[in-house]
Protein backbone atom coordinates (compact mmCIF):
# COMPACT_ATOMS: atom_id res chain seq x y z
CA UNK A 1 0.00 0.00 0.00
CA UNK A 2 1.29 3.38 -0.94
CA UNK A 3 0.47 6.60 0.78
CA UNK A 4 1.49 10.14 0.32
CA UNK A 5 3.55 11.77 2.97
CA UNK A 6 4.19 15.45 2.74
CA UNK A 7 6.64 17.71 4.46
CA UNK A 8 3.97 19.00 6.81
CA UNK A 9 3.85 15.65 8.58
CA UNK A 10 7.63 15.53 8.87
CA UNK A 11 7.65 19.04 10.35
CA UNK A 12 4.78 18.18 12.66
CA UNK A 13 6.81 15.26 13.96
CA UNK A 14 10.01 17.29 14.30
CA UNK A 15 8.17 20.11 16.08
CA UNK A 16 6.32 17.71 18.38
CA UNK A 17 2.89 18.65 17.06
CA UNK A 18 1.58 15.12 16.42
CA UNK A 19 -0.87 13.33 18.69
CA UNK A 20 0.68 10.36 20.52
CA UNK A 21 -0.94 7.78 18.25
CA UNK A 22 0.14 9.65 15.11
CA UNK A 23 3.61 10.00 16.53
CA UNK A 24 3.91 6.28 17.16
CA UNK A 25 2.67 5.55 13.64
CA UNK A 26 5.19 7.98 12.20
CA UNK A 27 8.03 6.42 14.17
CA UNK A 28 7.01 2.97 12.95
CA UNK A 29 7.09 4.27 9.39
CA UNK A 30 10.46 5.88 10.04
CA UNK A 31 11.93 2.56 11.16
CA UNK A 32 11.16 1.11 7.74
CA UNK A 33 12.38 4.10 5.80
CA UNK A 34 16.00 5.18 6.33
CA UNK A 35 15.60 8.12 3.96
CA UNK A 36 12.72 9.47 6.02
CA UNK A 37 14.76 8.91 9.17
CA UNK A 38 17.68 10.83 7.68
CA UNK A 39 15.40 13.69 6.69
CA UNK A 40 13.91 13.91 10.18
CA UNK A 41 17.40 13.84 11.69
CA UNK A 42 18.45 16.74 9.46
CA UNK A 43 15.51 18.93 10.45
CA UNK A 44 15.99 18.04 14.12
CA UNK A 45 19.67 18.95 13.83
CA UNK A 46 18.67 22.26 12.29
CA UNK A 47 16.27 22.96 15.15
CA UNK A 48 19.01 22.16 17.66
CA UNK A 49 21.47 24.41 15.81
CA UNK A 50 19.04 27.34 15.88
CA UNK A 51 18.27 26.84 19.57
CA UNK A 52 21.95 26.50 20.40
CA UNK A 53 22.77 29.65 18.42
CA UNK A 54 20.46 31.65 20.68
CA UNK A 55 21.31 29.85 23.90
CA UNK A 56 17.88 28.25 24.20
CA UNK A 57 17.32 24.92 25.97
CA UNK A 58 17.43 21.87 23.72
CA UNK A 59 13.69 21.43 24.00
CA UNK A 60 11.67 24.55 23.30
CA UNK A 61 8.62 22.91 24.86
CA UNK A 62 9.49 24.31 28.27
CA UNK A 63 6.82 23.88 30.88
CA UNK A 64 5.92 27.16 32.49
CA UNK A 65 4.15 25.94 35.59
CA UNK A 66 7.22 25.23 37.63
CA UNK A 67 7.90 28.60 39.18
CA UNK A 68 10.97 30.76 39.32
CA UNK A 69 13.19 28.32 41.18
CA UNK A 70 13.48 26.17 38.06
CA UNK A 71 13.55 29.07 35.67
CA UNK A 72 16.10 28.51 32.94
CA UNK A 73 17.69 31.76 34.01
CA UNK A 74 18.62 30.16 37.32
CA UNK A 75 22.23 28.96 37.03
CA UNK A 76 21.95 26.67 40.03
CA UNK A 77 18.98 24.77 38.67
CA UNK A 78 19.90 24.37 35.03
CA UNK A 79 20.60 20.68 35.31
CA UNK A 80 17.35 20.11 37.15
CA UNK A 81 15.06 21.94 34.80
CA UNK A 82 15.07 19.52 31.80
CA UNK A 83 14.37 16.56 34.04
CA UNK A 84 11.45 18.33 35.66
CA UNK A 85 10.15 19.53 32.35
CA UNK A 86 9.89 16.09 30.88
CA UNK A 87 6.90 15.01 32.91
CA UNK A 88 4.65 17.98 32.15
CA UNK A 89 5.72 17.84 28.50
CA UNK A 90 4.69 14.20 28.29
CA UNK A 91 1.42 14.96 30.03
CA UNK A 92 0.84 17.85 27.70
CA UNK A 93 1.56 15.81 24.61
CA UNK A 94 -0.82 13.14 25.82
CA UNK A 95 -3.72 15.39 26.83
CA UNK A 96 -4.05 19.00 25.89
CA UNK A 97 -1.97 18.91 22.73
CA UNK A 98 -3.49 15.73 21.37
CA UNK A 99 -5.83 16.47 18.51
CA UNK A 100 -6.47 12.83 17.60
CA UNK A 101 -8.26 10.04 19.47
CA UNK A 102 -6.89 9.17 22.92
CA UNK A 103 -4.42 6.30 23.14
CA UNK A 104 -5.60 2.92 24.44
CA UNK A 105 -5.13 2.50 28.21
CA UNK A 106 -2.15 0.32 29.19
CA UNK A 107 -2.73 -3.21 30.43
CA UNK A 108 -2.98 -3.54 34.22
CA UNK A 109 0.34 -4.73 35.64
CA UNK A 110 0.72 -7.69 37.96
CA UNK A 111 0.41 -7.08 41.73
CA UNK A 112 4.14 -7.39 42.42
CA UNK A 113 4.96 -5.01 39.65
CA UNK A 114 2.35 -2.56 40.93
CA UNK A 115 3.88 -2.64 44.41
CA UNK A 116 7.35 -2.10 42.96
CA UNK A 117 6.03 0.82 40.91
CA UNK A 118 4.34 2.33 43.95
CA UNK A 119 7.58 2.11 45.93
CA UNK A 120 9.53 3.63 43.07
CA UNK A 121 6.97 6.43 42.73
CA UNK A 122 7.13 7.13 46.47
CA UNK A 123 10.93 7.24 46.34
CA UNK A 124 10.84 9.55 43.34
CA UNK A 125 8.31 11.81 45.09
CA UNK A 126 10.48 11.99 48.20
CA UNK A 127 13.55 12.75 46.08
CA UNK A 128 11.55 15.40 44.26
CA UNK A 129 10.58 17.01 47.56
CA UNK A 130 14.20 17.08 48.64
CA UNK A 131 15.28 18.60 45.34
CA UNK A 132 12.44 21.12 45.22
CA UNK A 133 13.04 22.28 48.79
CA UNK A 134 16.73 21.88 49.57
CA UNK A 135 17.99 22.71 53.05
CA UNK A 136 18.41 26.46 53.31
CA UNK A 137 16.52 27.06 50.09
CA UNK A 138 13.17 28.70 49.54
CA UNK A 139 10.22 27.16 51.31
CA UNK A 140 6.65 26.92 50.08
CA UNK A 141 4.61 29.11 49.87
CA UNK A 142 7.14 31.49 48.39
CA UNK A 143 7.00 35.24 48.64
CA UNK A 144 5.62 36.55 45.32
CA UNK A 145 7.43 39.86 45.81
CA UNK A 146 10.75 38.00 46.14
CA UNK A 147 9.88 35.93 43.07
CA UNK A 148 9.16 39.04 41.01
CA UNK A 149 12.38 40.66 42.20
CA UNK A 150 14.36 37.55 41.36
CA UNK A 151 12.88 37.38 37.85
CA UNK A 152 13.59 41.08 37.25
CA UNK A 153 17.15 40.75 38.57
CA UNK A 154 17.91 37.75 36.37
CA UNK A 155 16.36 39.27 33.30
CA UNK A 156 17.66 42.81 33.58
CA UNK A 157 20.65 43.01 35.92
CA UNK A 158 22.42 39.64 36.03
CA UNK A 159 22.58 39.46 32.24
CA UNK A 160 24.22 41.98 29.95
CA UNK A 161 20.92 43.60 29.07
CA UNK A 162 21.30 47.28 28.22
CA UNK A 163 19.74 49.77 30.58
CA UNK A 164 16.46 51.20 29.34
CA UNK A 165 17.22 54.64 30.76
CA UNK A 166 20.85 55.30 31.70
CA UNK A 167 21.29 57.76 34.55
CA UNK A 168 23.84 58.23 37.29
CA UNK A 169 21.77 60.88 39.05
CA UNK A 170 18.74 59.71 41.06
CA UNK A 171 16.91 62.92 40.18
CA UNK A 172 17.32 62.22 36.47
CA UNK A 173 16.06 58.69 37.00
CA UNK A 174 13.11 60.05 38.97
CA UNK A 175 12.25 62.47 36.16
CA UNK A 176 12.10 59.50 33.79
CA UNK A 177 10.16 57.35 36.26
CA UNK A 178 7.60 60.12 36.68
CA UNK A 179 6.67 59.71 33.03
CA UNK A 180 6.40 55.93 33.41
CA UNK A 181 4.50 55.74 36.70
CA UNK A 182 2.67 59.07 36.80
CA UNK A 183 4.74 60.22 39.74
CA UNK A 184 4.10 57.16 41.86
CA UNK A 185 7.72 55.99 41.96
CA UNK A 186 10.89 57.96 42.67
CA UNK A 187 14.48 56.76 42.82
CA UNK A 188 15.81 56.85 46.39
CA UNK A 189 18.43 59.55 46.89
CA UNK A 190 21.47 58.50 48.85
CA UNK A 191 25.15 59.26 48.69
CA UNK A 192 27.33 56.19 48.78
CA UNK A 193 30.81 55.17 47.74
CA UNK A 194 29.73 51.56 47.60
CA UNK A 195 26.99 51.77 45.00
CA UNK A 196 26.56 53.91 41.92
CA UNK A 197 23.26 54.21 40.06
CA UNK A 198 23.63 53.33 36.37
CA UNK A 199 20.04 53.38 35.18
CA UNK A 200 16.41 52.40 35.41
CA UNK A 201 13.85 50.38 33.55
CA UNK A 202 10.28 49.08 33.76
CA UNK A 203 9.91 45.45 34.82
CA UNK A 204 7.03 43.11 35.64
CA UNK A 205 6.38 43.27 39.36
CA UNK A 206 4.40 41.11 41.73
CA UNK A 207 0.96 42.29 40.59
CA UNK A 208 1.60 45.20 38.29
CA UNK A 209 4.56 46.86 36.64
CA UNK A 210 7.46 48.06 38.73
CA UNK A 211 10.49 50.30 38.48
CA UNK A 212 13.80 48.50 38.44
CA UNK A 213 16.90 50.53 39.30
CA UNK A 214 20.30 49.08 38.50
CA UNK A 215 23.36 49.95 40.58
CA UNK A 216 26.99 48.95 40.21
CA UNK A 217 29.28 48.27 43.15
CA UNK A 218 33.02 48.94 43.31
CA UNK A 219 33.78 45.53 41.78
CA UNK A 220 31.56 46.29 38.81
CA UNK A 221 28.85 43.84 39.87
CA UNK A 222 25.28 44.84 39.24
CA UNK A 223 22.71 45.10 41.99
CA UNK A 224 19.05 45.80 41.34
CA UNK A 225 16.33 47.52 43.33
CA UNK A 226 12.75 46.80 42.31
CA UNK A 227 10.13 49.28 43.48
CA UNK A 228 6.51 48.31 42.96
CA UNK A 229 3.68 50.64 43.97
CA UNK A 230 1.21 48.69 46.12
CA UNK A 231 -2.02 49.91 47.67
CA UNK A 232 -1.63 50.06 51.45
CA UNK A 233 0.80 47.20 51.96
CA UNK A 234 1.46 46.03 55.52
CA UNK A 235 4.86 47.17 56.78
CA UNK A 236 7.25 44.27 56.56
CA UNK A 237 10.85 43.87 57.61
CA UNK A 238 13.34 42.64 55.00
CA UNK A 239 12.95 38.96 54.20
CA UNK A 240 16.09 37.36 52.82
CA UNK A 241 16.48 34.62 50.26
CA UNK A 242 19.54 33.14 48.60
CA UNK A 243 18.78 31.08 45.54
CA UNK A 244 20.47 30.17 42.28
CA UNK A 245 23.47 32.45 42.77
CA UNK A 246 21.35 35.46 43.74
CA UNK A 247 20.73 37.08 47.09
CA UNK A 248 17.53 38.99 47.67
CA UNK A 249 15.99 41.12 50.36
CA UNK A 250 12.33 42.14 50.12
CA UNK A 251 10.38 44.47 52.33
CA UNK A 252 7.26 46.60 52.23
CA UNK A 253 6.20 49.97 53.52
CA UNK A 254 5.09 53.48 52.57
CA UNK A 255 2.97 52.26 49.68
CA UNK A 256 5.70 50.24 48.03
CA UNK A 257 7.05 46.73 47.83
CA UNK A 258 10.82 46.78 47.42
CA UNK A 259 13.30 44.06 46.52
CA UNK A 260 17.07 44.45 46.51
CA UNK A 261 18.82 41.73 44.52
CA UNK A 262 22.45 41.04 43.76
CA UNK A 263 25.06 38.34 43.37
CA UNK A 264 26.17 38.35 47.02
CA UNK A 265 24.95 39.45 50.43
CA UNK A 266 27.20 42.48 51.00
CA UNK A 267 26.07 44.77 48.16
CA UNK A 268 22.44 43.71 48.65
CA UNK A 269 22.63 44.47 52.36
CA UNK A 270 24.23 47.83 51.57
CA UNK A 271 21.55 48.69 49.00
CA UNK A 272 18.73 47.59 51.30
CA UNK A 273 20.16 49.67 54.15
CA UNK A 274 20.67 52.76 51.98
CA UNK A 275 17.23 52.47 50.40
CA UNK A 276 15.53 52.08 53.77
CA UNK A 277 17.44 54.99 55.27
CA UNK A 278 16.76 57.25 52.30
CA UNK A 279 14.00 59.84 52.73
CA UNK A 280 10.61 58.25 51.97
CA UNK A 281 9.39 59.09 48.48
CA UNK A 282 6.32 61.25 48.17
CA UNK A 283 3.51 59.56 46.26
Amino acid sequence: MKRRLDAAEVFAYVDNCLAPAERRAFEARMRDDPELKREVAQWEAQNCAIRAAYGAPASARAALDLGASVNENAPGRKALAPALRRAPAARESGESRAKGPPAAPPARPAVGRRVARSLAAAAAFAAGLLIAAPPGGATWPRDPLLDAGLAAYRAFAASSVPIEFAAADPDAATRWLVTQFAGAVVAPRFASDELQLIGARVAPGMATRAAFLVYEDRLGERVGLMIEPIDAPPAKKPAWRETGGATLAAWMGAGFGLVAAGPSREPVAALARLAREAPPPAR
Partner: protein
Amino acid sequence: MSSIREWCDDAGGLRRFGLALVRDDRFVCDDLCAAALVDQLFRQASLTLAPDRRADARPTRARVFAQFVRLYRRHVRRLDAEEGDGGWAEGPVPSRCANGGAAAAVRALPLDLRETLLLVVLAGLTHAEAAEALDIPLAVAVGRLARARARVAAFMATGSARAPAGWPRAAHLRIVK
Protein backbone atom coordinates in the same frame (compact mmCIF):
# COMPACT_ATOMS: atom_id res chain seq x y z
CA MET B 1 0.37 28.92 40.17
CA SER B 2 -0.97 32.14 38.75
CA SER B 3 -0.75 32.91 35.08
CA ILE B 4 1.27 36.04 35.90
CA ARG B 5 3.89 33.76 37.39
CA GLU B 6 3.91 31.61 34.24
CA TRP B 7 4.71 34.21 31.66
CA CYS B 8 6.98 36.26 33.90
CA ASP B 9 9.09 33.14 34.30
CA ASP B 10 9.60 32.95 30.58
CA ALA B 11 10.89 36.50 30.16
CA GLY B 12 14.27 35.01 29.19
CA GLY B 13 12.63 32.94 26.46
CA LEU B 14 10.77 35.98 25.17
CA ARG B 15 13.96 38.01 25.06
CA ARG B 16 15.83 35.26 23.24
CA PHE B 17 13.03 35.03 20.71
CA GLY B 18 12.95 38.80 20.42
CA LEU B 19 16.68 39.10 19.82
CA ALA B 20 16.49 36.52 17.05
CA LEU B 21 13.46 38.17 15.45
CA VAL B 22 14.85 41.71 15.51
CA ARG B 23 18.24 40.50 14.33
CA ASP B 24 20.17 41.25 17.52
CA ASP B 25 19.09 44.86 17.91
CA ARG B 26 19.09 44.80 21.69
CA PHE B 27 17.51 48.19 22.19
CA VAL B 28 14.54 47.43 19.96
CA CYS B 29 14.25 43.99 21.53
CA ASP B 30 14.22 45.32 25.09
CA ASP B 31 11.66 48.00 24.27
CA LEU B 32 9.35 45.53 22.60
CA CYS B 33 9.81 42.90 25.33
CA ALA B 34 8.89 45.45 27.98
CA ALA B 35 5.93 46.67 25.93
CA ALA B 36 4.66 43.13 25.33
CA LEU B 37 4.98 42.23 29.01
CA VAL B 38 3.31 45.44 30.15
CA ASP B 39 0.49 44.93 27.62
CA GLN B 40 0.01 41.50 29.05
CA LEU B 41 -0.08 42.89 32.57
CA PHE B 42 -2.80 45.35 31.62
CA ARG B 43 -4.70 42.61 29.86
CA GLN B 44 -4.37 40.42 32.91
CA ALA B 45 -5.67 43.23 35.09
CA SER B 46 -8.63 43.88 32.81
CA LEU B 47 -9.47 40.17 32.68
CA THR B 48 -9.35 40.07 36.45
CA LEU B 49 -11.90 42.87 36.56
CA ALA B 50 -14.11 41.43 33.83
CA PRO B 51 -13.36 37.72 33.24
CA ASP B 52 -13.81 36.64 29.66
CA ARG B 53 -13.58 32.89 29.35
CA ARG B 54 -13.53 32.94 25.59
CA ALA B 55 -10.67 35.46 25.43
CA ASP B 56 -8.70 33.67 28.11
CA ALA B 57 -8.90 30.31 26.38
CA ARG B 58 -5.78 31.03 24.37
CA PRO B 59 -2.58 30.23 26.22
CA THR B 60 -1.11 33.31 27.81
CA ARG B 61 2.40 32.42 26.75
CA ALA B 62 1.49 32.27 23.06
CA ARG B 63 -0.27 35.60 23.44
CA VAL B 64 2.86 37.33 24.75
CA PHE B 65 4.93 36.07 21.82
CA ALA B 66 2.18 37.05 19.38
CA GLN B 67 2.10 40.52 20.91
CA PHE B 68 5.86 40.84 20.45
CA VAL B 69 5.51 39.90 16.78
CA ARG B 70 2.73 42.46 16.30
CA LEU B 71 4.75 45.19 17.98
CA TYR B 72 7.79 44.44 15.85
CA ARG B 73 5.73 44.53 12.67
CA ARG B 74 4.37 47.89 13.75
CA HIS B 75 7.92 49.07 14.47
CA VAL B 76 9.09 48.02 11.00
CA ARG B 77 6.10 49.67 9.36
CA ARG B 78 6.73 52.89 11.26
CA LEU B 79 10.41 52.89 10.34
CA ASP B 80 9.51 52.27 6.76
CA ALA B 81 6.96 55.08 6.74
CA GLU B 82 9.52 57.45 8.23
CA GLU B 83 12.06 56.53 5.57
CA GLY B 84 9.43 57.26 2.92
CA ASP B 85 9.90 54.19 0.74
CA GLY B 86 6.25 53.29 0.91
CA GLY B 87 7.11 49.60 0.97
CA TRP B 88 6.97 47.14 3.84
CA ALA B 89 10.40 45.80 4.50
CA GLU B 90 13.12 45.73 7.10
CA GLY B 91 16.50 47.18 6.44
CA PRO B 92 19.43 45.09 5.21
CA VAL B 93 21.05 42.57 7.55
CA PRO B 94 23.44 44.50 9.82
CA SER B 95 27.02 44.07 8.70
CA ARG B 96 28.12 43.02 12.20
CA CYS B 97 25.91 39.96 11.76
CA ALA B 98 27.55 38.70 8.58
CA ASN B 99 29.12 35.63 10.13
CA GLY B 100 28.27 32.01 9.42
CA GLY B 101 26.13 29.58 11.38
CA ALA B 102 22.50 29.09 12.21
CA ALA B 103 22.05 32.57 13.68
CA ALA B 104 23.33 34.19 10.48
CA ALA B 105 21.06 31.96 8.43
CA VAL B 106 18.06 33.00 10.51
CA ARG B 107 19.00 36.67 10.24
CA ALA B 108 19.14 36.40 6.48
CA LEU B 109 15.52 35.22 6.29
CA PRO B 110 12.78 37.65 5.33
CA LEU B 111 10.56 38.72 8.22
CA ASP B 112 7.54 36.56 7.40
CA LEU B 113 9.63 33.39 7.22
CA ARG B 114 11.77 34.32 10.19
CA GLU B 115 8.87 35.00 12.54
CA THR B 116 7.19 31.69 11.63
CA LEU B 117 10.35 29.67 12.11
CA LEU B 118 11.26 31.34 15.39
CA LEU B 119 7.78 31.04 16.86
CA VAL B 120 7.95 27.29 16.32
CA VAL B 121 11.61 26.53 17.00
CA LEU B 122 12.61 29.08 19.64
CA ALA B 123 9.28 30.01 21.24
CA GLY B 124 8.07 26.42 21.13
CA LEU B 125 4.59 27.14 19.82
CA THR B 126 2.73 24.47 17.88
CA HIS B 127 2.07 25.06 14.19
CA ALA B 128 -1.54 25.93 14.97
CA GLU B 129 -0.54 28.38 17.71
CA ALA B 130 2.03 30.00 15.42
CA ALA B 131 -0.59 30.38 12.68
CA GLU B 132 -2.96 31.98 15.17
CA ALA B 133 -0.25 34.28 16.48
CA LEU B 134 0.54 35.44 12.97
CA ASP B 135 -3.13 35.60 12.00
CA ILE B 136 -2.66 33.37 8.97
CA PRO B 137 -4.13 29.98 7.97
CA LEU B 138 -2.35 26.87 9.22
CA ALA B 139 -1.41 25.79 5.69
CA VAL B 140 0.25 29.13 5.03
CA ALA B 141 2.19 28.84 8.28
CA VAL B 142 3.39 25.35 7.38
CA GLY B 143 4.38 26.55 3.91
CA ARG B 144 6.37 29.43 5.39
CA LEU B 145 7.99 27.05 7.83
CA ALA B 146 9.02 24.78 4.98
CA ARG B 147 10.50 27.63 2.97
CA ALA B 148 12.30 29.02 6.00
CA ARG B 149 13.82 25.65 6.84
CA ALA B 150 14.95 25.09 3.26
CA ARG B 151 16.61 28.51 3.17
CA VAL B 152 18.33 28.02 6.51
CA ALA B 153 19.56 24.60 5.41
CA ALA B 154 20.90 26.03 2.17
CA PHE B 155 22.57 28.89 3.99
CA MET B 156 24.18 26.63 6.56
CA ALA B 157 25.39 24.20 3.93
CA THR B 158 26.78 26.62 1.39
CA GLY B 159 26.71 30.09 2.88
CA SER B 160 24.31 31.22 0.18
CA ALA B 161 20.60 31.02 -0.40
CA ARG B 162 20.86 28.28 -3.05
CA ALA B 163 20.00 24.80 -1.84
CA PRO B 164 22.79 22.24 -2.35
CA ALA B 165 22.11 19.19 -4.47
CA GLY B 166 20.77 16.30 -2.47
CA TRP B 167 19.49 18.39 0.38
CA PRO B 168 15.88 17.53 1.15
CA ARG B 169 13.58 20.06 -0.42
CA ALA B 170 11.09 21.67 1.86
CA ALA B 171 7.63 21.50 0.37
CA HIS B 172 7.65 18.27 -1.55
CA LEU B 173 5.57 15.15 -1.72
CA ARG B 174 7.18 11.78 -1.41
CA ILE B 175 5.88 8.30 -2.16
CA VAL B 176 6.31 6.02 0.83
CA LYS B 177 5.64 2.31 0.68
